């Protein structure tokens, strides 16, 4: 099963961005996606924190993969992930308390982000270190990208700002609902719809191309 080291790594990286985007395609790790995307900064911080954890845990899991028996696989993986999450938690606290406060419990909850354990299980435990890092990076960045889309939309409509910068002249009426939970659900729902539409367009084009060539 294990693919040769680093071969096809770029592919591992690319796939997470769009084709197997963890949010839009796999619909994984939804809790942080919805909870912390009420502003662009939060979304970016969360995305980066997650990427950090996923890359490091993928690395460690892949290194130790032949050393861990099946029975305690999950427990060990979680242990590793929890460690890196704790590390990230302290790092963020050291960098900025404000960001830490904004992200709230969701930093700790990166542990249970289905995406990370999913990658550890499905990819890192079967592949070499290089490929696993690339996979983690791709997934992490794809995840961050999705968070940013969501956070951007919600912040622009919900507060009239993007990354804290005012986008509208004074007197803009913010759409409070966008920052509220229901706004998160709606926005993600609509983004998925847009994503589906783009994808079905692409698929159609591909089908037409195939028909033409064959």
């Amino acid at each position, binding site marked *: 099963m294990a693919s040769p080291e680093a071969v096809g790594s770029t592919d591992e990286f690319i796939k997470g961005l769009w084709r197997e985007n963890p949010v839009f395609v796999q619909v994984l790790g939804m809790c942080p996606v919805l909870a912390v995307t009420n502003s662009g900064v939060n979304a970016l911080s969360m995305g980066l924190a997650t990427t950090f954890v996923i890359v490091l845990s993928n690395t460690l899991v892949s290194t130790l993969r032949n050393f861990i028996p099946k*029975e*305690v696989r999950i*427990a060990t993986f979680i*242990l590793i992930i929890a460690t890196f999450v704790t590390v990230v938690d302290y790092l963020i606290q050291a960098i900025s308390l404000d960001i830490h406060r904004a992200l709230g419990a969701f930093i700790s909850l990166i542990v249970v982000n289905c995406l990370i354990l999913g990658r550890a299980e499905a990819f890192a435990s079967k592949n070499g270190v290089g490929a696993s890092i690339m996979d983690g990076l791709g997934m992490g960045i794809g995840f961050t990208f999705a968070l940013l889309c969501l956070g951007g939309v919600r912040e622009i409509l919900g507060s009239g700002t993007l990354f804290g910068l005012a986008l509208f002249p004074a007197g803009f009426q913010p759409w409070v609902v966008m920052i509220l939970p229901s706004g998160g659900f709606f926005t993600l729902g609509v983004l998925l719809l847009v994503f589906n539409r783009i994808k079905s367009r692409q698929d159609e084009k591909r089908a037409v191309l195939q028909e033409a060539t064959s």
Partner: protein
Amino acid sequence: MIVVTSVAAIGGLTFLLASMLILANRKFYVEEDPRIDRVEEMLPHSNCGACGFPGCRPFAEALVGGEALPGKCTVSNDEGRAAIADFLGVAVGQEIKVVARLACAGGVNVARNRAHYGGTPTCLAAAQVAGGGKGCFWGCLGLGDCERICDFDAITMDRHSLPVVDNDRCTACGDCVDACPKDLFSLQPVTHRLWVACRNLERGDEILANCEVACTACERCAVDAPNGLVTMRDNLPVVDYSRPHDTRQPIERCPTGAIVWIDEKQGVMKGAAAKKIIRHSALPEAPT
């Protein structure tokens, strides 16, 4: 100091948990063949049931249990089947490809409606209303239930509203067989090239008023067929596929082309005596 306590604490905790899990594994382990999961992963997940099992998982169980061979899965491709066979160390057991075939040739250009059906445009619904209004009671209603039910896009309605099966796409799942209210589809090995494309149980030339390609039960095919390959039953020819059937003789003198030869390359071929029909538009509905 703080380092030692915490490493020790975690060590102790994990030791405890590991012991617990080990104990639990000893005490509570339930045997399940891990190969089932692997095989299931290799199957196409269509859950179509063409293999004769209720879904991919049960089929995987049967495969691992040696009760079935990978060839039964008609949806997967050759590589997929070979991979499973490899994995389990068994033969592929490839079967002859089976496809769905339609026993009707009465498109709207050759077959007439005797009443105008109004209402839900599905075959099933139409069949509830006086059989659907088609002149031939047995004929295809042309409303495309089979096309809609086929998950594999193997059926398209041609311009005469008659379903056409794409042999490459058909997985022989049998959904169309169940869906057709006129029971016109059946699953046939592709090697059955002699084919009776009619179900009309009436006899005589009068029925040509309803459908120009109906079998009139003239019995020429039965007469021409070598050693009893074709016999007449209920005014229809029946091909006995257990005999050698690679001859086109029976179709040659059929006056309407109700018995045909399905060629690998050229598709459906009628006999020389069959009346040529060049009409492309629909026949008008019969006056009352």
